[in-house]
């Protein structure tokens, strides 16, 4: 099996008297695309926020290989665009990441070029379409040159055309040498993007297998039911 990116050790997270994540232990592989799959309310978003450090676990821990957390970024379901130009949205993130002032602009323009948004660089980010905003969010994340990129349902609010473009970009970023951890409840998307599937249900891991095995023959009853349920809707 591939080298580990991070290891989750008996993670638990409570909120409002409910246990949202319970006894989650897993080993996320480096330089692969891990898709967290599961029904709504399974705890996918919470789990990713625990990995990214936006939430602190009640118990257990997130252990990064190499001892300390690498450069990482996260793209959310709804992109948060600052009220400034597309370019300034990227240079802002680079400034926070400690990139030298002289270097920010070139680096930002370079990334915008690669995602095909260079022509929008001077446009106010807030007036772009949802799909364009999500691509700017991806570019902003990518500009940080993260070792791992977290994506929380990145296409859930997009139309099919924009979704396809976002999926394509995720592939490009992964190919650039970035580990991907992404949540979705869209089976088709999981099939297209995943190397590994981490299937969770009610805050616990039901199954963690390579994507090919998962779709060929899910081992857990919950996953099998989920696949059947989702297929019956599509």
């Amino acid at each position, binding site marked *: 099996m591939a080298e580990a990116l991070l290891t989750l050790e008996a993670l638990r997270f409570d909120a409002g008297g409910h246990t949202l994540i319970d006894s989650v232990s897993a080993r996320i592989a480096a330089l692969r695309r891990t898709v967290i799959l599961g029904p709504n309310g399974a705890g996918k978003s919470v789990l990713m926020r625990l990995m990214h450090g936006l939430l602190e676990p009640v118990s257990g821990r997130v252990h990064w290989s190499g001892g300390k957390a690498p450069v990482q970024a996260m793209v959310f379901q709804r992109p948060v665009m600052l009220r*400034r130009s597309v370019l*300034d949205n990227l240079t802002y993130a680079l*400034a926070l990441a400690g990139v030298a*002032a002289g270097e920010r602009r070139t680096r930002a323009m370079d990334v915008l070029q690669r995602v095909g948004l260079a022509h929008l660089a001077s446009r106010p980010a807030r007036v772009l379409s949802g799909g364009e905003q999500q691509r700017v969010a991806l570019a902003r994340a990518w500009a940080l040159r993260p070792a791992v990129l977290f994506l929380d349902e990145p296409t859930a609010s997009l139309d099919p055309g924009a979704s396809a473009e976002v999926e394509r970009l995720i592939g490009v970023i992964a190919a650039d040498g970035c580990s991907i951890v992404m949540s979705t409840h869209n089976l088709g998307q999981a099939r297209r993007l995943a190397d590994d599937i981490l299937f969770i249900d009610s805050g616990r891991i039901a199954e963690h297998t390579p994507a090919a095995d998962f779709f060929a023959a899910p081992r857990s009853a919950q996953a099998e039911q989920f696949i059947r349920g989702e297929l019956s809707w599509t």
Partner: protein
Amino acid sequence: MDMIRRSLISAVAAAAVAFASPVSFAAERFITVSSTTSTENSGLFKHLLPVFEAKTGIQVRVVALGTGQALDMARRGDADVVFVHDKKAEEKFIAEGYGVSRQDVMYNDFVLIGPKADPAKVVGGKDITAALTAIRAAQAPFVSRGDKSGTHAAELRLWKAAGVEGDAPTGDWYRSTGSGMGAALNTASSMNAYIMADRGTWLSFKNRGDLTVVVEGDNRLFNQYGVILVNPEKHAHVKKADGQAFIDWVVSAEGQQAIAGYKIGGEQLFFPNAAK
């Protein structure tokens, strides 16, 4: 970042412009006079001060309050000169050591104002205490300043002379408003009430409605104005020389003439009577 810098720079520039103007006032040579609404509202100062300012280059800043407040303001050291009309209170002020000395400047008189319908039947009388007694007997509406001003003090003295026990008359008909001369006149005008006013403010007052002068000319309605330099020994920052210059001018022949020259509709408002 650029945007922040730009907005910061423009903000600081705006602040500099905004501050330049208020600060520039502080550089001028001026004295602060605490005085009464009657002198300010009647327009006397507007007539008097430009003459003094042109002659001496000393700007006179008048803060108009009731006599009681004007004296309190000077007690706290916030005025250089006091120009008020309540001799008893002024003498107390001197006795407490807040004022250097008091000089008579001018007088006018109080008048009893009332509705033309005259429910208390006092019109044309010359005896102010008789008129007040009649108003009280008729329970006709009466508006009082109620603000410890010179006019208020004079009114209370007259009620006492009319045989009222305690500080002031009581009853629904007697309305203590706690306001300046003009505001009290507005109230009386809208209530069609009797009220005691200084003649100067009455003559320059425009919102008379149905009100008119009902009693005047009683010696007890005499209203003396005095001027006092605030004691520099109590408040070291008092502008002694410029304040004294103003006092000297007001009681001089020239100042006294200027006071006598102030008229509204041909009627003289104040009568100079400084000791020669």
